[in-house]
């Protein structure tokens, strides 16, 4: 890497983003995470989130961010600082999210992003885990009497641009040899507004997003989410490549929450559970062994997450499930031993 201060300054004027944190990718010692160092120095974690998707990340009427993506960032902040409020939530459009992560403007991208091969290979990102297994669906007006997505031939469909949704939509209609008209908007909000005004027959996005947008509509009961799911959308947080420790921290923050649910450890009983004789629980809560050390964190890192944010099940119910306005069935997001596919490797 060139080090000339002058050339750096000029290049900075040409393209300030490209040059932020020029040292972030230097070869460091294996146990040190430059991203973690930077966050600890700054005292806050920069987390890129969706500007407003109920259940995933949306500010409430007091400006407090809520959602499972928000909880994930709070969990990481709790593990680092023992304080879930030390997160700066930066709303990202679908368009700028990857660039913001690549250039170091944000440390975690927890923006209901779909884990795809291209994003990991071409864009140089790493998805740490799947925190919501989703799939793309369609929402239509009840009065159209449509029961299947296969009946949508010749329909006008509103979509947010710059997402996998746009591609899945094209694939679905191409695969079924049907014609349609796509109207793509910069934001999900504009797309839903156009759908609501009658410009489109259907609105498409991930099924969770359909439920989230439906509650925002004036007359939610006039709209129905079709049962077909036309794609696999494993949603999860992503980090930059090149900082394996940081990748591990974000990955294991999620796994700690899933393991906690599996082991029956929750926000309320965490202190009590620390006295448990079960070795799994003792390792999770940092009573035995030193798993925190190899993440560059304190040994009670998972304990902090559970006490401040709760386990995965609690976060799900509070934001998306029965305890929320969305009331989405947990479905495949149930734990693996309860009929779902949510599975975390063991802490040992």
């Amino acid at each position, binding site marked *: 890497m060139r080090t000339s201060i002058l050339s750096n300054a000029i*290049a900075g004027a040409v393209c300030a983003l490209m040059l932020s944190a020029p040292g972030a990718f230097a070869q460091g010692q294996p146990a040190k995470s430059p991203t973690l160092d930077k966050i600890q120095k700054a005292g806050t974690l920069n987390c890129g989130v969706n500007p407003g998707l109920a259940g995933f990340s949306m500010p409430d009427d007091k400006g407090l961010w809520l959602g499972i993506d928000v909880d994930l960032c709070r969990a990481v902040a709790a593990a680092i600082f023992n304080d879930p409020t030390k997160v700066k939530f930066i709303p990202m459009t679908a368009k700028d999210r990857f660039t913001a992560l690549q250039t170091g403007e944000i440390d975690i991208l927890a923006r209901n992003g779909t884990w795809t091969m291209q994003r990991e290979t071409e864009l140089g990102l790493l998805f740490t885990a799947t925190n919501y297994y989703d799939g793309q669906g369609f929402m239509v007006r009840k009065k159209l009497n449509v029961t299947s997505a296969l009946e949508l031939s010749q329909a006008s469909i509103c979509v947010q*641009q710059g997402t996998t949704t746009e591609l899945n939509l094209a694939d679905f209609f191409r695969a079924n040899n049907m014609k349609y008209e796509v109207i793509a908007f910069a934001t999900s909000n504009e797309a839903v507004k156009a759908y609501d005004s009658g410009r489109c027959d259907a609105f498409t996005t991930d099924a969770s997003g359909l439920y989230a947008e439906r509650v925002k509509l004036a007359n939610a009961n006039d709209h129905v989410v079709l049962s077909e799911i036309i794609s696999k959308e494993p949603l999860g947080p992503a980090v930059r490549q090149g900082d394996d420790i940081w990748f591990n921290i974000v990955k294991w923050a999620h796994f700690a929450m899933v393991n906690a649910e599996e082991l029956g450890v929750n926000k309320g009983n965490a202190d009590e559970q620390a006295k448990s004789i079960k070795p799994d629980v003792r390792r999770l809560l940092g009573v035995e062994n030193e798993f925190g050390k190899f993440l560059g964190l304190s040994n009670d890192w998972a304990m902090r997450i559970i006490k401040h944010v709760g386990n995965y099940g609690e976060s799900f119910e509070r934001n998306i499930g029965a305890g929320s306005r969305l009331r989405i069935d947990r479905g495949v997001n149930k734990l693996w031993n309860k009929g779902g596919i949510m599975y975390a490797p063991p802490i040992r």
Partner: protein
Amino acid sequence: MSDATSSRPPPRDARPVEWRALAIQIAIALAILWLGWQAIGNVAENMRARNIPSNFDFLSATAGFDLNQSLIAYSATSTYGRAFLVGLLNTLAVAAIGIFFATIIGFAVGVARLSQNWMAAKLATIYVEVIRNTPLLLQLFFWYTAVLAPLPGPRQSISLPALGLRMPDPQAGMAAITAFALASFVLLSVRNQIKGSAIKAAGYAISALFMILMIVAILFGPRVAGFGNAVGILDIRDGAYVFLNNRGLFLPFPSLGEAAIWLPAIILASAIGATGFSFWAKSQREEKGRILPVFWISMLILIVPAALTIWAAGSSVTIDYPQLRGFNLAGGVRVYPEFFALVLGLSLYTASFIAEIVRAGILSVAKGQSEAALALGLRRPTILKLVIIPQAMRVVIPPLTNQYLNLTKNSSLAVFIGFPDLVQIFVGTVLNQTGAMIQIISITMAVYLVISLLTSLAMNFYNNKMALSER
């Protein structure tokens, strides 16, 4: 060099100073080049470090997404390069049509602001102050909502009154319309040469009668079905062929068949012919003082060959009527609400600035000019056309160019109302799909730069033509 400096001998130390200045200039230029080179190298290296692709290979990859409005053939299996082209053409179309309407509205409002009519002047003032003092993006949202909100869904489409109108025999129809156009244009062209006022009046009467018949047939067609058939070219039925709903305006469109191959070439040839004619007419005016009806004859040159081609193509010309198919209307030609709202919003917004520029231009012409023209016995419209506007244009053109450039650049707000312009397609979807940020932003910036420079070039050419030629 002006006479003042060349008549004086140069100072003794002029050469060294010039050399020194030159050396400094070259050194600075080299330094800037070097810094630029360093910057490019640095960016490229940092892009590699962040795994951001740094070549242009993505342009030939399959796009995989669909677009609803395209002037050229495009599907999900086309390349990103093709998608770029679609966006570019859409942007150019919006800019060209927006500039056309903004100019007309702007000139009308600018003149109205100076009108003696109190009402017209005040309305124009309110228009200018309201439109130019609110953000364009809000106006676009407003128009998009205002266009969409009152319109019904496709199954309850409004069928406009014309619109039980159908051309059963396109060949005969085209022939009749061509004959009518021909007759009218010839009449208008030679109206000043005709001496006998009776012949003149008869010509006007025939032309007016034909016009009235057409209008009656179009407006009241369905109710006077027999009448339409009597005209011979229009088969009037109860049933609509023009629809308006919240998916757009659907119009019948001739499918040209064999004529489609020849038509573009013939229109181009006609355009060249019309331009040539206007130059010839100008030379006639300047050399011999003969004033020819340039506008009408140009229209004749433009329309007649095209109409004859369509007529000659005969039965292969059919008319494609929009019909309800599934959820939407298919067939014919369609004006999309996104396109309409964008052009409307951009035209009205830019027109408010153009109106002020036009007002400034007119006010810059001294009052004595029109008084002198009046004293020479010229009429008001002639004064405006030959005395005021040519002088006002010198003040108007440079800032007008700026407004044209603004309109073109502002068209990139299309993304917010779902119109697939260059920015929406290329900087939106393609950038997100490929991650080729630097390349895509650079290409897009270069495209806007080229469009702007070409617009400026054309306007500068026009400006030079209009400029006061000092002797």
